[in-house]
Structure formats: structure tokens, C-alpha cells
């Protein structure tokens, strides 16, 4: 049901029955390697293009989630997915393999929480028994599409981020054991006029701030109501801007505020300002954060996935980067 201006409260509290988290070689060297279900040593995944490799990541994540939940492909009523490729080919091609009825999403790197919010809404309103929602990204395909081919050797400024190679999906159900999705806040598109695709964190920070403010307002909550608040892929620069902007609005984010883009890689990996990409918030949330919830270290978390809604064409035409952020609350509820 609607809560406040732009939030949903899920009375039936859909359950995250299982997740599938797949990563590439770079992720395997990071501190969260143990939180992945499958890690690949070869960034091609044995495919002959990076786009096919990205599709394979998403397919494997779906297979893993279905297997972990003890279900069959046929049990999945709807598949909600999106990615960064033109015309979201990764998701659509993976949906072809999966064979489930499919809704394609585009929220760039916010797709993980867009999918989780919509999937929860469908389950909450009895529209399905089982839903898979998720997203994938691949470092090499993203570099090729949005920046420069790696061989071109274009220099990266200190604000640049590293796109995660991976896929993360959640299998949602009406009942069962697992963490539950209790609320979501849908973000507005916010554009502060930044047009530098090598500074996505700064472009997306105001969108994260807008959604966080809306969330706290709609639910009359404060940051201390959560054990953990994680933004999607703001990186070091966007993280600090978000903290500063919220402080200006009288919202103090404590130590429980983290950014997925700063968790997935270690300091000595050459990722510059941190990680980004649709799979960043998806793999960290569905892997690391949910594992921590299952161990009882966290009981109530707010994930705010941030997305930059640019296209290669809009960037070439010097348009600024419109950004968005969607927040979802996941809780451990004792049954």
C-alpha cells in the first residue's frame, strides 16, 4: 500500500527465498569473494563476446537461485530484469533461456532495487507465487559501450569507477524462510547538471539523497532505525557528497552507512574511486549483505541502488546525466 508520497509498505512481506550471485576474476580477488555463489576465472566465460559472457552471468545467477530454493524453472511466474546494454539485451536473452514470462526493466545501476521493489509489489498483491528479479553487468562490455575500448588506452581521471563483472538475482516468494522485503521508496529523476561520465558518483549522489530523504519522511524514520544503509555504487566521491548533503539537511548518517561500490574491491585493487555497474549493488546486496543478515549480524537494512540514466548518444550530445535511486527495506522477521 502507498505510504507517504512515493513509498510502498508490503503488508504481506514477500520473502527472499534464495539468491544467485555470480562474479568475474576481478571480483574473485576482492574482499567479498566468499559471498559469491560462482566465481569465474575467465572474464570471457568461454564465450566469444563480452555481451554473451554477460548474458551467461545472468543465466547462471538465475539457475543458482532456482537450485538453492529447490524449485524448477517452470515454478517461476515472472522474471524481472534489466542491465546496461543497449535495448537490455543481456536480460532479454537470459529471459529467452529461462523461458519465464518476462518484464524488462531499465534503471541503469538502480535496476537491482527497481526489480526487487516491483517483484515485491507483485508478490504482495498476490500476483505471483515466485518471481526472480535481478541484473547483470560486465566490465568489458560496459567500457566498450559507455567509455572507450580498453585497447584505446584512454586515461581515467581519479573520479572514474570500475564496472563490476557479475550478476545478482533474488528469488521472491509469498512464504517460506528468509529475509523479508517490507518497504520500498521509488525515486525521482534528479539531474544536477553533471555531464562527465567519469564522475558518476557525484552525478548520482543527489538522487540518493533525494530518495533517502523521501524514505525517512514517508516512513517517519531516521538512519538509526537501520542496522545498515547501503547505497549502490556511488564510490568514494559520491559517498562523501551524499553524507555531506544529508548532513546539510539535518540527517546524520552514522557508521552504519556504507556504499556497495566501496565494499566489493580492496584498497590495493586499481579501481580508482570504487565500483559501479548494475551488478555492484545486486551482488553486494544479494551476496554479502543477505549473508550477514542470515548470520544475524544485521536485522534491518535499507538498500538504495543508484542509477545514471545516460546513453552513449546523450553523452556525445553533451547532455547532462539524469540520475535515480530506489530504496528497498529488507528485514529479518522472527516467525
Amino acid at each position, binding site marked *: 500500500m502507498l505510504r507517504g508520497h512515493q513509498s510502498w509498505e508490503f503488508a504481506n512481506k514477500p520473502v527472499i527465498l534464495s539468491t544467485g550471485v555470480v562474479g568475474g576474476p576481478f571480483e574473485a580477488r576482492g574482499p567479498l569473494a566468499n559471498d559469491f555463489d560462482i566465481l569465474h576465472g575467465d572474464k*570471457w566465460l568461454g564465450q566469444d563476446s563480452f555481451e554473451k559472457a554477460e548474458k551467461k552471468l545472468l543465466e547462471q545467477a538465475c539457475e543458482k537461485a532456482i537450485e538453492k530454493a529447490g524449485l524448477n524453472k517452470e515454478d517461476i511466474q515472472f522474471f524481472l530484469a534489466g542491465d546496461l546494454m543497449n535495448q537490455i539485451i543481456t536480460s532479454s536473452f537470459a529471459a529467452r533461456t529461462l523461458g519465464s514470462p518476462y518484464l524488462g526493466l531499465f534503471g541503469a545501476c538502480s535496476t537491482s532495487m527497481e526489480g526487487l521493489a516491483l517483484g515485491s509489489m507483485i508478490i504482495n498483491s498476490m500476483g505471483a507465487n515466485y518471481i526472480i528479479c535481478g541484473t547483470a553487468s560486465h566490465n568489458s*562490455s560496459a567500457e566498450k559501450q559507455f567509455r572507450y575500448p580498453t*585497447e584505446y588506452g584512454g586515461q581515467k581521471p581519479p573520479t572514474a569507477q570500475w564496472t563490476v563483472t557479475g550478476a545478482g538475482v533474488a528469488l521472491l516468494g509469498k512464504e517460506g524462510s528468509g529475509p523479508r522485503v517490507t518497504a520500498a521508496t521509488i525515486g525521482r529523476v534528479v539531474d544536477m547538471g553533471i555531464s562527465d561520465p567519469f564522475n558518476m558518483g557525484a552525478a548520482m549522489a543527489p538522487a540518493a539523497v533525494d530518495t533517502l530523504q523521501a524514505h525517512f519522511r514517508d516512513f517517519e524514520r531516521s538512519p538509526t532505525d537501520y542496522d545498515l544503509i547501503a547505497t549502490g555504487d556511488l564510490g568514494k566521491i559520491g559517498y562523501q557528497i551524499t553524507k555531506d548533503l544529508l548532513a546539510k539537511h539535518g540527517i546524520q548518517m552514522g557508521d552504519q552507512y556504507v556504499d556497495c561500490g566501496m565494499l566489493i574491491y580492496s584498497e590495493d585493487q586499481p579501481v580508482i574511486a570504487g565500483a559501479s555497474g548494475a551488478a555492484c549493488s545486486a551482488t553486494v546486496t544479494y551476496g554479502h549483505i543477505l549473508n550477514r543478515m542470515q548470520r544475524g549480524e544485521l536485522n534491518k537494512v535499507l538498500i538504495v541502488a543508484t542509477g545514471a540514466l545516460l546513453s552513449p548518444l546523450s553523452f556525445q550530445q553533451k547532455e547532462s546525466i539524469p540520475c535515480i535511486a530506489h530504496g528497498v527495506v529488507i528485514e529479518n522477521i522472527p516467525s
Partner: protein
Amino acid sequence: MQIYFWAFVVGGLICVIGQLLFDVAKLTPAHTMSTLVVLGAVLDGFGLYEPLIDFAGAGASVPITSFGNALVHGAMAEAEQHGIVGIITGIFEVTSAGISAAIIFGFLGSLVFRPKG
């Protein structure tokens, strides 16, 4: 020995200009490269690039500015022989070796290596 020193200084300075175009003027790599090519062409138009090569050797002939210089050189040389049409036919006269080499070696490289992204 002196030519090594000036090659280092002049070549380095051309790269400094490129880096400033990146970092200060915020140009894209493609715009930076084109700007330097045009710069080399304009300098040659004023007859300044050849003396620079005489002075700094590879410091002036290796950077991309030299490509602009070569474009103008080829066009002017042909223009002297064939008039206005020579400008069109001569542009790639001197640079054709460089362009053909880029295509051929790029092709050979692609047969051996897999792209990184």
C-alpha cells in the same frame, strides 16, 4: 648529444599540452588528438614545423602533431605539381605509409590477441 636533450624537452612539452587539454580543458581523447593534429598542420602552414623537427628531431616527428605537418606537406607538394586538385590528392601522399601501417598491423594484431574490452 644536444639533439637528445631537445627531443626530450620538445616531445615532452607537446605531451604536456595534450595532458592540459585533457585535464584543464576537459577535452575527450579524440578531441585532444584532433586538436594536436590541427596544431601541427597550422604550424606547418606557417613554415614552423620543419624547423622544429630540425631542432628537436624525434621530439617533434614522433608526436601526433607531426601527422598534421605531414598532411599539409603532402597537400602542398602535390598542389605545386597539379594545382588545386593536388591539395585533394596530396593530403594522404606522405601519410599513407602511416595510415596503411596502422590498418595492416592493427589487423595482424587482432589475429593474435583477444580484445580486453
